[in-house]
Structures are given as C-alpha cells and as structure tokens.
C-alpha cells in the first residue's frame, strides 16, 4: 500500500513537471476556461439584454388616429427598430421575405373604427420564423405596444368600449428558492461541469496517448511501478490541474457577480469526481484509440451532444422522455446537477450524496476495466 502511494505520488509529480515544461499545454489549461466562458457570456448577454434593435417594417393601412397611437408605441419599443413604413401588405411581406426586416406589422384598414365600435379588432404580424428568438421578441414588442396603447386609451377615456378591459385574469409570480433573479446566470454552473469534462479529456490525451506516440508510455509501464499506480498518479495530477481550473472558474463566477451559496469544498469535490470519472472513461477509450488527435477529435465530437444531454445547459428534468432517460444514464448529469444545486441552493453534503456516489461508483467500475484493457493491449 505504501509503495502504491509512493509510486502514484512519483507519477503525479512527473505529470505536473511535464505540464510545467510545456508552455502551450499550460497556457491552454489556463486559457481554455476563460475563452469558453467568454463565449457563453456573449450568449447570456445576447439573451438577457434589456433592449434590441430588431428591424421591423410597418404598414399602416388604416391611417386613423387610433393606429397612430399604436405606431407611436411601436416606434418607442426598446425591443424593435421600425426602419421603414410601407404602403401595402405585399411590400411588408416582401420586406420580411427578403430579409430586410425580421417582422412586419400590418394594421388593417378599419382597425380604429372596429376597435371603437365593437371593442375588438386585429393586427397582422408577419415574422421571419427562420430566426430563433427574434420573432418572439417582435411579438412581445407588439403585445406590449398594444397593451400600452390600451392602457393609455382607458386612462384618458379615449375609447369607451375599452374601459374596464383587463389583459389577463390571472397573474403568475415566480419565486426562485435561491432568491436570485429568475433569468440570472443560467449557463454558468453547467459551464463549470463542461470545462471539467473537457479539461479531463484533454488531460488523458496528454497523459496517455501522447506518451504512447512519443514511446515513453511503454518505458513507464516497464519500470517497477505498477500500472495501477501509473493510472492513480495520472489521476492525481488531473485532480490537481482540475483544482486550478475550478479555482479559475470560481474567480470568473465571482467577477461576473454569481453568488455561490454552498460550500466551495463541495464544488471542488464534485468537479474532482467528474474529472476522475471522465479520466477513467478516457483511459478505457485510450486503450483502443491510440492516436492523440483521434482521441481529441472524439472528445470535441462528444462535447456538443454532452452540452444537450449532460445537464450542462438544460437540466435533465426538462428534456424529452428519451433524452431524460439517456441523461440519467450519464454520470456527468449527476455531477452537473450537484454543482448547480451547490451554487444556487447552497445544499449540504446529504443533498448531493447520491450524485457523489454515482460518480464515485462509475469511476470505480471503469478504472479496473481500463487497467485490464491497458494490460491486454500493451
């Protein structure tokens, strides 16, 4: 046992020494989380902005004083920018189809008259639905403009037919139990999980396949050090590097204003176990896939499905039934779930015990398999 620990320690020191002598890998270890998180900050900012300039054209076929009020509200909406007024329905549709505008608001003839006489009318909204979010925002801008117009109308007694109008009978108030804003930082905890997974995959590429390519791995295996100690040493060095990455991420979280409610030690524990599990899986794969570039490309190919299925971006609970079943069969999902609950809810060890256990057991199952496969393919 003493020998196992001593050998593992020697391999750990060797791995860290190698990393310190390879400036590119060292820089990558540092830059990788920063770049990844920067990209997702851009994404978060795009989705969370309070104003946009989505181009919209308007066709006011009515030309009444009532439609003018609606136009006024539309032009002052923070979500859209009315960049052209057109004369006909066809021109409005053409503007959307040509990509000049994302939406076209068409106020039909008789709009004002119908509203004042019957209290009910309509406007047409043509949107470019090939966009992902912009059509929803155009719809929201039109709805809020209509609401603002009706509020103004009822307040000034402008439209008798509309007095007493109530937009919706029921209002829903959301109270997140963490106390944070409902829209705040939806991606960040998942990103910590993803960076841990990707980082650990990269470590295995460094630790095994590159050593194989250089021919140093067989030499290492032929030393009196047990193969299990070799793996344990490589794993320990990954845990150390992972701790550096996690620290870096936590600093970025703090700088971006994310409040971490839970115990930071549990975050380190969870990310370490995610890294160890990923490394165990990587060891199994690397016993078959010998080329470092193939392993890296496989790692990247796995990344994008994992964004979807490991709870990094969407929680497993909100996936379609098949996706949910698949997500729950991936140990990473439990790790991401634990990270999110520690950061947002501040839960203690008891609440994440199952997640920790799943990660630990999965690693314990994979590690002997990796050792066995490595011995066979030696």
């Amino acid at each position: 046992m003493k020998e196992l620990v001593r050998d593992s320690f020697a391999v750990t020191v060797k791995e860290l020494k190698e990393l310190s002598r390879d400036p590119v890998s060292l820089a990558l270890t540092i830059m990788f989380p920063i770049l990844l998180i920067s990209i997702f900050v851009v994404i978060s900012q795009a989705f969370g902005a309070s104003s946009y300039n989505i181009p919209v054209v308007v066709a006011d076929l009515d030309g009444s004083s009532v439609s003018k009020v609606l136009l006024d509200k539309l032009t002052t909406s923070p979500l859209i920018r009315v960049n052209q007024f057109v004369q006909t329905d066809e021109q409005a549709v053409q503007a959307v189809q040509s990509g000049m505008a994302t939406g076209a608001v068409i106020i039909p003839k008789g709009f004002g008259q119908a509203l004042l006489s019957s209290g009910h009318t309509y406007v047409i909204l043509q949107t470019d639905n090939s966009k992902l979010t912009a059509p929803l925002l155009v719809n929201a801008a039109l709805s809020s403009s209509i609401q603002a117009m009706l509020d103004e109308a009822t307040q000034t007694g402008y439209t008798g037919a509309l007095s007493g109008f109530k937009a919706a009978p029921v209002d829903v108030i959301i109270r997140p139990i963490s106390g944070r804003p409902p829209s705040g930082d939806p991606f960040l905890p998942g990103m910590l999980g993803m960076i841990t997974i990707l980082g650990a995959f990269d470590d295995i590429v460094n630790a095994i396949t590159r050593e194989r390519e250089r021919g140093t791995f067989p030499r290492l295996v032929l030393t009196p050090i047990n193969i299990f100690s070799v793996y344990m040493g490589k794993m320990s060095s990954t845990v150390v590097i992972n701790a550096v990455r996690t620290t870096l991420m936590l600093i970025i979280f703090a700088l971006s204003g994310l409040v971490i409610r839970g115990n930071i030690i549990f975050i380190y524990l969870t990310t370490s176990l995610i890294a160890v599990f990923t490394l165990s899986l990587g060891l199994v794969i690397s016993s078959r896939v010998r080329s470092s570039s193939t392993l890296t490309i496989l790692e990247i190919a796995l990344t994008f499905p994992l964004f979807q299925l490991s709870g990094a971006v969407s929680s497993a609970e909100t996936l379609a039934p098949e996706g949910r079943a698949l997500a729950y069969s991936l140990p990473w999902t439990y790790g991401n779930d634990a990270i999110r609950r520690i950061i947002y809810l501040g839960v203690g060890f008891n609440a994440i015990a199952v997640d920790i256990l799943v990660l630990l057991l999965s690693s314990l199952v994979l590690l002997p398999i990796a050792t066995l496969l490595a011995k066979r393919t030696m």
Partner: protein
Amino acid sequence: MSKSKFLSDTLAVTINEFRVLRRNRTAILLSLVVIPFFFTAALGVGSGGAGTSYSVTAKIPIAFIDDDQTVASGRVYAILARSGDFHQLIQGYREDNAIATLGTGKIYAVIVIPKGFQDRLLNDQVGHITVYVDDSVADLGSAIQGNLLKNLQDFNPRLEVQPVRVGVSSPIEIVARGVKFSGFDVGLTVILGLVIIFATFYEIAGGISRESEEGTYARLAVSPIGLGAIMAGKTFYDLGLNAVRALIVCALAVYGYGARPNTDLLTIVGLSLLMALLTMGFGFIISALGLGVRAVIIVEFFLVLFLFAFSGFIIDRELLTGFSKTISYSLPWAYGIEVIRRAVLIGQPLWTMANQLMFVVVSTVVFYGIAYFVLKISRERLVI
C-alpha cells in the same frame, strides 16, 4: 500545365485520399458515423422529434397548495390537471413543508393559490398565483410560468366549462403569419451546419497537418503534381464525404425524427457543400501556417465555439450588439447559415438570397486564394 494533366493529378490525389480513408477504420467511424449520428441523435432525444410534442413541465412533480379553498381555486386545479402540462400535481402538502422540500428532488415547484383568489377575480381584479421554484433546474421557472399563463389566460371563475378560445383575451388580436415548423427542424439546420463545419475543418486542416508531421505532405509537395491539383484533389475528396454526411444527417432527421424540410434534398446537399467549401478554404489557410495536429484541433474547437456564438447558430444576429454584431456580420459562415435556415425552414428560393450566397462564394474564393499563395511559398521553401 495542361488541363488534362491538372484533371488527372486532381483525380489521383482524390483517389489517394479515399484510399487512405478506407484503410483507417477509426477515421471512417468518426467522420461518417460518430459526428453526424451523435449530433443529430442528441438533438432528437433531447428535444423530441419533429412529429412529437412534449411539455417540459408535464412529468415534473409539483405541489399544489390551495389556500383559498373556493370554487375558483378548485377550477384552477382541474384546468391544470386536465391540461397535459401538469400531470404530476400533488395535493396534500402544507405550504411551509412543500417549500422546505424544494431542492431535495422530491418536488420541483410549489404552486400556491392564495387566500382571497376568488374574491379578487369576482371583483374584476387580477388574481395572483405564486410559484416557488427549485431554480437549480435550468429554466424551469419560466416554463411553469408560461404553461400556467397559457392555461389560465381565459380563466373565468364564474364558468364551470372554461372558454376554449386561447390567445384572444385582448381586444386587439395579433394574427401571426409566417411559416411554422417544429423546434427539431430549427435544430436540424444548426446540426447540419455544425457537422459540416466541424468535420470539414478537421479533415482538411487536420489531414494536412498530420501528413506534414508524418512527412508525406512534403513528399507530395515536391512531386510533379501541382499545388492546385493537390488542393483540388483534397477538395473533391472532402466534398464527397460531405455529401454523404449531409445525406446521413438528413436521412436520420427525416426518417428517424420526422423532420420536414421545406426545400428539396438537392438544395440541402448543395448548400451543405457550399458551407463545406468555405470551411475547406479556411482549413487550407490554417494548414498553410504549419501548425501541428494538436494546434489545429484546438483552433477547430475555438472556431466552432466562436461560430456557435456569432454565426447565428443559437443567437440571431439581430440580438447581438456593438463589437459582437460587427464580428457576426463579417463572418461568411453567418451568411451561409442564414441561407441554409431560410431555404430549409421557410423554403425561400435561392435566387432571392443572391447577396448572401455571393458573400459566401467570394469569401471561399478569397480563402482559397490566400491558402494557395501561402502554401505555394512553403512549397517553394521545401523544393529549395
């Protein structure tokens, strides 16, 4: 160089590339199975196929606390339980117990109908419903809020049978026009773009870097085969692979997950190949820089992430501001993705998107030109 020699050299390089691929089972597996299948299947199982619909909140255990105990609050429960959006509403919790249970995974939200709910509605006031939500589940709060409002927007406490009209409670109705399609169809365009860019870049830039490391590229460069023929041969080889890949993604999406593209298969494959050509041009430039395979893979990873954020894959360019917007509008991939999306989703004819297509084509030519120039310099160095 005569035209026939150029063609025969190009053909020789293409055949050589396919031969190398055929001998590498891992490369075939990665290129034609893992990448297209993983990406498409992850989208399909994660968000459901095009023909299927599921409610995010349907199978999530949610406590329902009725503090009002009136006919109106009972009707709210009945509406929600029948809606298809809330299959696991649990009654019987006390409010404080239910809130304390949040975060344990037994329940994920608590819907509270407060005392006085019915009175407010009968007095023509807005009735409030409070939802406590376990926000460690991403976006659950907004999903529950959306589904509650959807089901209760025409709620009338006086009526046992609620109105069936949905979305017309305002005196001004918004009549939405525009082609409708499933979320999976939207995802298909993202996956198609990602798969093409991801695999193409690796095959071109990674392939040449690997050949450089192994020394075979130097041998090829000093052979009588012209640089243009080498580039053309590799291009034709990768176009062939991309055509197969685009067909695999489309077949899986259409037959496996019920996607219904609004354009023909030829257009989809053609646009995929256009994107592939653009990426190949960029891949040739990167390979001309003499980077190692590992560096190329790192560049690829960040290229894909970069395009993910700025090319309209998941964020519409209209939502970006400032420098992000400038970057987005200068990326030729963004125009290609826009064309794919418009053609696949709304069936827009290609001739109406001539400007975007022209931008992609010109960028491709520029990329190839730069790559040819840089590769030629490095080749001359090799020869000297």
